[in-house]
């Protein structure tokens, strides 16, 4: 059975690397996708604020076409956070309001379509990989462990927020991507801002605000000496990657952190070639960081990179004879 696939506009343009890597990884993991024929824009973040009803109809058109797709499991997979949000939100709103549903269906009828709320299940790509394929199945296929690569898992503010049908992960401190990266052999750094906002479209509205939000994320990743930030959203990737140079100019910093899609790292670990995964299309070159994969472990925290404070704050192991107090016992990391 195939999943309906809704790539969204970003994945055809700025996030084409996400699309390519998603396809390559899906192929490797045995996930079958059927792209929704003649899909349209989800309206992104703004349109819903401008014209409410047309924006619902716009999204519902995609849901209706997904529901009519033959040979699918009635699950729509969106790799983009905003698409995921809009599709699942509209589905829920239509279910909650028969009045809205009838208005939207009136519009859809013009195109010979009809959508009954709840007939498809909207999923994010990460959720499909970790729940339907599973951590273990991914781990089994790892050919090139990402050892010695320090990644900061960045979820952004949309995917894990209270879900409209289900909760993907804890909204305040998600861990799904952390676990996935660990299965690939990467070193996952603590990244406290993992569910904070990347600024979204504030880059177009008030660049000062956006640049500060981006700076905080980059600073936090740098403090934890991450080699790369791994994302699951084209917006997050774009802001952190394309605006990194602006941030450096504006704040007189010298961040140089590549921003990768999680599918790119999964693909690398599964043994796919970088060019199959769209690696090289990013603004901040990922190659120097990726070159570290498999290299000998370098002692981190010893460098005087000005981030020693964070290195010190990193939790100590349960100390033996020192005067330090033991850390609380946490559930074992493999107990997901």
């Amino acid at each position, binding site marked *: 059975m195939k999943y309906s696939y809704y790539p969204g506009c970003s994945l055809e343009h700025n996030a084409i690397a996400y699309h390519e890597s998603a396809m390559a990884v899906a192929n490797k993991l045995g996930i079958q996708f059927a792209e929704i024929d003649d899909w349209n824009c989800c309206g992104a973040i703004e349109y819903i604020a401008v014209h409410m009803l047309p924006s619902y109809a716009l999204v519902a058109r995609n849901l209706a076409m997904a529901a009519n797709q033959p040979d699918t499991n009635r699950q729509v997979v969106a790799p983009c956070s905003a698409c995921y949000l809009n599709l699942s939100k509209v589905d829920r709103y239509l279910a909650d309001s028969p009045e809205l549903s009838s208005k939207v269906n009136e519009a859809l009828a013009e195109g010979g379509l009809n959508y009954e709320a709840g007939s498809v299940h909207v999923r994010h790509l990460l959720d499909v990989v970790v729940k339907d394929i599973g951590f273990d199945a991914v781990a089994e296929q790892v050919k090139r462990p990402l050892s010695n690569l320090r990644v900061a898992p960045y979820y952004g503010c949309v995917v894990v927020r209270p879900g409209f049908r289900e909760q993907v992960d804890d909204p305040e401190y998600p861990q799904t991507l952390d676990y996935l990266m660990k299965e690939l052999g990467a070193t996952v750094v*603590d990244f*406290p801002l993992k569910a904070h906002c990347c600024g979204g479209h504030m880059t177009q509205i008030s660049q000062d605000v956006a640049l500060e939000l981006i700076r905080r994320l980059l*600073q936090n990743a740098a403090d934890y000496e991450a080699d790369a930030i791994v994302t699951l959203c084209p917006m997050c990737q774009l802001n952190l990657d394309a605006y990194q140079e602006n941030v450096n100019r504006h704040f007189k910093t010298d961040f140089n952190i590549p921003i990768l899609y999680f599918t790119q790292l999964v693909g690398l670990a599964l043994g796919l070639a970088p060019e199959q995964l769209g690696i090289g299309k990013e603004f901040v070159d990922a190659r120097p960081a990726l070159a570290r994969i498999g290299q000998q472990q370098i002692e981190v925290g010893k460098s005087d990179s000005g981030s020693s404070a964070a290195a010190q704050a990193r939790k*100590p192991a349960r100390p033996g004879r020192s*005067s*330090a107090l*033991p850390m609380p016992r946490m559930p074992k990391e493999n107990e997901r």
Partner: protein
Amino acid sequence: MRNPNQERVGVYVCHCGSNISKTVAVADVTEWAAQQPNVTVARNYEFMCSSLGQELVEQDIQEQGLTRVVVAACSPHMHEKTFRNACGRAGLNPFLFEMVNIRELNAWATNDPDSATSKARSMIRGGVERVIQHQPLEPLPVPINPSTLVIGGGIAGITAALEIANSGHHVYLVEREPSIGGHMAQIDKTFPTLDCSACILTPRMFDAGNHPNITLMTYSEVEAVDGYVGSYRIRVRKKARYVNEELCTGCGLCIEKCPGKTVDEVFECGLGYRKAAYRPFPYAVPKYPVIDTENCTYFQRGKCRACQIVCPTDAIDFEQQDEMIDLDVGNVVLATGYDMFDARRIPQYGYGRLANVFTSMEFERIVNAAGPTGGKIVLRDGVTEPKSVAIIHCVGSRDKNYHEYCSRVCCMYSLKFAHLVHERIPEAEVYNFYIDMRASGKRYEEFYHRVLEEGTHAIRGRVAEVTDAARGPDERGKLIVQAEDTLVGKQRRIPVDMVILSVGVESRHDSSALAQLFGLSCDFNGWFTERHPKLDPVLTMSEGIFVAGACQGPMAIPETVAQGAAAAARVLSHISQGTMMLEPVRANINAVQCSGCRICNNLCPYNAIVFHDDTQVSEVITALCQGCGACVSACPSAAISGAHFTTDQVMSQIEGILGDIIPLELVTA
């Protein structure tokens, strides 16, 4: 069926001030009732439950020769006993009385006077028809075993045990940890008086451990419960200590020489270490150590025996087994206490991830002179004194995601922490992040003001997150507490060295298992349910099973102690009665009619039905039966009848109620 023509029924309709008369036309109903067949007299009165109202009933029984009484008033929960007693005083069997609830079930349920009045008539007719079928019953006397079981050796259990023991009766005090003392033994100071918790607790612990009337059973758990009020049989598992208590002098050499060291997750909350042979704390009662097999080198690897070699009295016994002990007791007090909320459940506060985030119980151990840091307030590294401390209130409490209730002790202990930090590190800045400051207790508000005057910052706002993600150089290396200051209406980011999470209290993780064992009910949050939240706070729905302290809901030490003493007083009242009169509302199996199908056997929630293999019939143990009626309705051969709820009685009541709608002849036909 009884011949109704022989009975003389008195009907009394209560106004209940205006509670009933506001909607029910009481005078009309009375007038109507007086016309009904078998009704000798009908009256109404403003407050039937008053002594004048009761005298009315008594007088009529004697002067008018009433043989049955119906009072139409409030719920039988309120006043059934009142009027039964009134009947009894006038020489009428108390069970020849019926209470009709026209308040909760009628007057309070509608604003429509016509329908309420008509319903009152139907209900009264049902009551009259029913009471005619009543039979005189006698209460069931059961003897009370004067021994008592107290479960839980915290301050509630210790208090209850001492009160009972001091009055000359025997108590078994069962505690699952190796020592009694409970949470109070872990705490440093108590609010608002700031007296040392251990100093006020240890004399009580010592008394409980050495009282001639108390059998102390630590490291023991209740496994099975049998019996009923007055004669319970309780099976207790006394876990193997691997130390012979009769030989052990408590010298502690075994502890000293034991090489197995482990983090103490219970008493020291994971902040300190203990040996495999250990006593949870220096002033433990009893003094005998236990050997924890999981961390003992001998039990794990088969060699060591260091403790056995050094023990001067040969008290170490590796062969010791768990012992099963059966106790016969008349009453049981549950004083099993509470658990602390697990701060790991709120990941945005960083507990377990950020080294210098502590829970309140951990902080109690840190400030305690007998604790892992010797009372020095230090960060996780064990050396650095914090110069700024944030205390976050309501962690896990007053939060729909975790517990909606207020844990009631956190505001006060948080203020106490603020005071202790100021006292030990005078230059430190202390921030209390609170939602509302709940200081409603004797001298609590005064304590709050005192702490404010000491310079504690109180910021009203729930904390969004605790993070180490610095935004600027001033935040580097600190924990940043982000919260909305709701009094100023601004976001605040406060960098501090140490964060204390004032975690709430929750019911014991295994409280439902204990409730099941004793046939009790727990509320939605797992707290044991008392019989009445205001008027009967320590008795449970099961007669002879009492609850005391924080197993019933969050409460501070003074209330806990009061509850322990209250439970003891209730137990002593049972004991001094010698026998107790139980309600005769019980099921009874007619052996001739019983087919021996055994359907009722498993249905009985109180295990009150036994099956006799020889005669192949079932029998109800009257004292165990709680009169729920499950077996009565299930019996396919109608062999079981419930006293005071016979088929005749229930059918007559239904017929009476329906009398207006369907002519009586039709119903009975």
